[in-house]
C-alpha cells in the first residue's frame, strides 16, 4: 500500500460540470500509486474548519502526476473548494482507504454502479477494469449510473470504458427509477458489482446481488475526523468480529471504504 502523506497539491484546472458539481484536477505525487476507489482528505484554508474533507479520486493521470476530484458543494468546505483556481496550492492527505478489488473481477462480468455523488470513483474503476481485460470497452464491463435528473455528469466519459446504462429519478433520461430498475430492465450481465452511492442504493444492491448470486463490493461513507484509522469515528457494523476492532466495527477510512457486501451488517 502506498505511503500516506499530507502535502501540497497544485490546482491544474477547475470547472463546473453540472448544477453544484465541480471537477478539479490536482497535480500531486500522490497520483503515483492510487487504487481506484481510494480517496484523499482535502483541507479547507478557512481556519474555522480543521478537518480534512474526504473526496474520492475520480481519475488518475500518471503522466501529469495528477488526480481528478469531482465533488458536490454541500457545505463550507466544498464551497471553498469550488473557488480554487489553476495555480492555487491546497493541502491534501492520501491516498486513503483500500479501493476496489479490481482483481476479483478477472474473467467475470463486472458492473460498476454509481449513484449521485457516488459516481466519481467508479470512473477510474471502469478505466482500470477495461485496461485489465486488454480490450477496448469490453463486453464484460458494464456501468449503471443513477442520477436525480438528466444532467448525467461524467456519464459520457464512462462510455469509453464500459457498456453504459442510466437511471434517473425523474425519468428525464435512461430508465426511470433507480439503478436496480435499470439493471433489471436492461438485463445487465453481472457476476461482480463495484458500487458507490447513497446507503439505500447500497442496501438495494446488496439484496439484488444476493438475489442473482453476484458478488458485491460496496464503497461506504461516514463522517470522518482523522481519515487514517486512528479516531474510530467512521465505523460501519460488520457481521463478523472484524480484525481490528474485535467488536463488529470496521473503520470505513482504512478497512474500507470498500467492503465485501457479505461482510456488512447494513
Amino acid at each position, binding site marked *: 500500500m502506498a*505511503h*500516506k*502523506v*499530507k502535502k501540497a497539491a497544485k490546482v491544474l484546472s477547475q470547472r463546473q460540470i453540472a448544477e453544484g458539481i465541480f471537477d478539479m484536477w490536482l497535480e500531486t505525487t500522490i497520483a503515483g500509486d492510487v487504487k481506484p476507489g481510494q480517496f484523499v482528505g482535502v*483541507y479547507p484554508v478557512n*481556519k*474555522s*474548519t*480543521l*478537518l*480534512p474533507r474526504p473526496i474520492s479520486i475520480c481519475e488518475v493521470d500518471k503522466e501529469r502526476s495528477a488526480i481528478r476530484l469531482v465533488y458536490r458543494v454541500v457545505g463550507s468546505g466544498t464551497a471553498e473548494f469550488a473557488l480554487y483556481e489553476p495555480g492555487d496550492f491546497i493541502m491534501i*492527505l492520501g491516498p486513503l482507504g483500500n479501493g476496489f478489488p479490481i482483481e476479483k473481477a478477472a474473467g467475470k462480468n463486472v458492473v460498476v454502479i454509481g449513484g449521485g455523488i457516488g459516481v466519481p470513483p467508479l470512473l477510474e474503476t471502469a478505466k482500470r477494469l477495461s485496461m485489465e481485460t486488454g480490450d477496448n470497452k469490453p463486453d464484460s464491463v458494464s456501468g449503471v449510473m443513477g442520477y436525480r435528473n438528466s444532467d448525467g455528469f461524467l456519464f459520457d466519459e464512462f462510455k469509453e470504458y464500459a457498456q453504459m446504462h442510466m437511471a434517473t429519478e425523474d425519468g428525464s433520461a435512461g430508465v426511470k427509477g433507480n439503478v436496480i430498475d435499470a439493471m433489471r430492465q436492461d438485463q445487465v450481465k453481472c457476476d461482480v458489482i463495484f458500487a458507490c452511492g447513497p446507503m439505500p442504493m447500497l442496501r438495494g444492491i446488496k439484496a439484488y446481488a444476493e438475489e442473482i448470486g453476484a458478488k458485491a463490493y460496496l464503497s461506504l461513507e*461516514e*463522517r*470522518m*475526523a*482523522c*481519515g*487514517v*484509522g*486512528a*479516531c*474510530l*469515528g*467512521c*465505523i*460501519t457494523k460488520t457481521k463478523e468480529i472484524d480484525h*481490528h*476492532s*474485535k*467488536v*463488529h*466495527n470496521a473503520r470505513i477510512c*482504512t478497512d474500507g471504504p470498500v467492503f465485501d457486501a457479505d461482510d456488512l451488517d447494513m
Partner: protein
Amino acid sequence: MNTEVTIAGVTFKNPVMTASGTFGSGMEYSDFVDLNRLGAVVTKGVANVPWPGNPVPRVTEVYGGMLNAIGLQNPGVEVFVERDLAFLADYDTKVIVNVCGKSVEDYLEVVERLSDEKVDMLEINVSCPNVKEGAIAFGQNKDALYDITSKIKAKAKQPIIMKLSPNVTSISEMAKAAEAAGADAISLINTITGMKIDIYKRQFALANKTGGMSGPAIKPVAVRMVYEASHAVNIPVIGMGGIQNAVDAIEFIMAGATAVAVGAMNFHDPYTTVKVVEGIEEYMTKYGVEEINDIRGIV
C-alpha cells in the same frame, strides 16, 4: 539543551506525548511520524473486555475543533496487549496506556492485566463524557475520584496518571483529591461536553446527542485549568487541549505543565507531534533555554 522531563521516576526524552484516542496505538500515524521522536505514545483507552462504542455519526466538526462521541470503542485488554503493545515495543519511546472502565472493578482488571507488561505508566480515564456508566462519573465528584484513585494506586505496578475532566466547577479540588489519593501525576483536560444541532435536518449532529469538544477552540480553558491544577498540587501535570504547535505547547509548560499532549490537531496535520518537538527545540535554542524545566510555570 535538555528537553528531558521526569514524571514519577519515568524519564521522557522530551515533553511531547500523543493525547489518548487521537493517535490509535501509534500504528496509524507511523506512516507520518517517527515514533522514536516522541516523548511518549499514549494509547487509546482500553477496557477489560471489548467495547463497541456508540452509534454513528460519532464525530462532527465545530468552529476551531470537533466533537466526538466514540464511546471508548476498544478491542479489550487482551488484544491490546498482543497487538498494540507488541507493536510499540519496537520503538524507543515511552508507552502510557489509557485505561477505561464502567466500574472500579473494570479498571482494576485492566490495571492488573498490565502489571507485567512493558508499560511505563497508566493514564486512568475518569473523564470521558461519552459513555453513560463509569468514566466521567468518577471525574466529576471528588469523593468518587479519591476512592477510585486510591483503589487503583493500591493495585497498580506502574505509576498512575489520573486524567481529569474539565466539566467541573473546581479543577483544583479535583486535582487535590487525586493527589491526596496517591496519584503520581494528573493529566488534563479531557474533552468539554458540547452539542451541535443541524437546523436543516432538525436533529443532533451526533447520534449520542452530546460529544466531547477538542481542538484549538478549547485551549484557553485548558491552559487556565493546567495553571490552576499545577498551583493546587505538587505532583506533575500533563497538559493538553488544542495544542497546534510548539508555541501552544510552551504556553502549557509556562502555565505549569511538565509534559504536554497533542490530540485533535493530529487530524488536521499528522505531523503535528514531531513539529512540536522540533519547535520546542528551536525556541530553546533561540531564547537560550538550557533545560525545558527552567521555563515550567514561569509566569
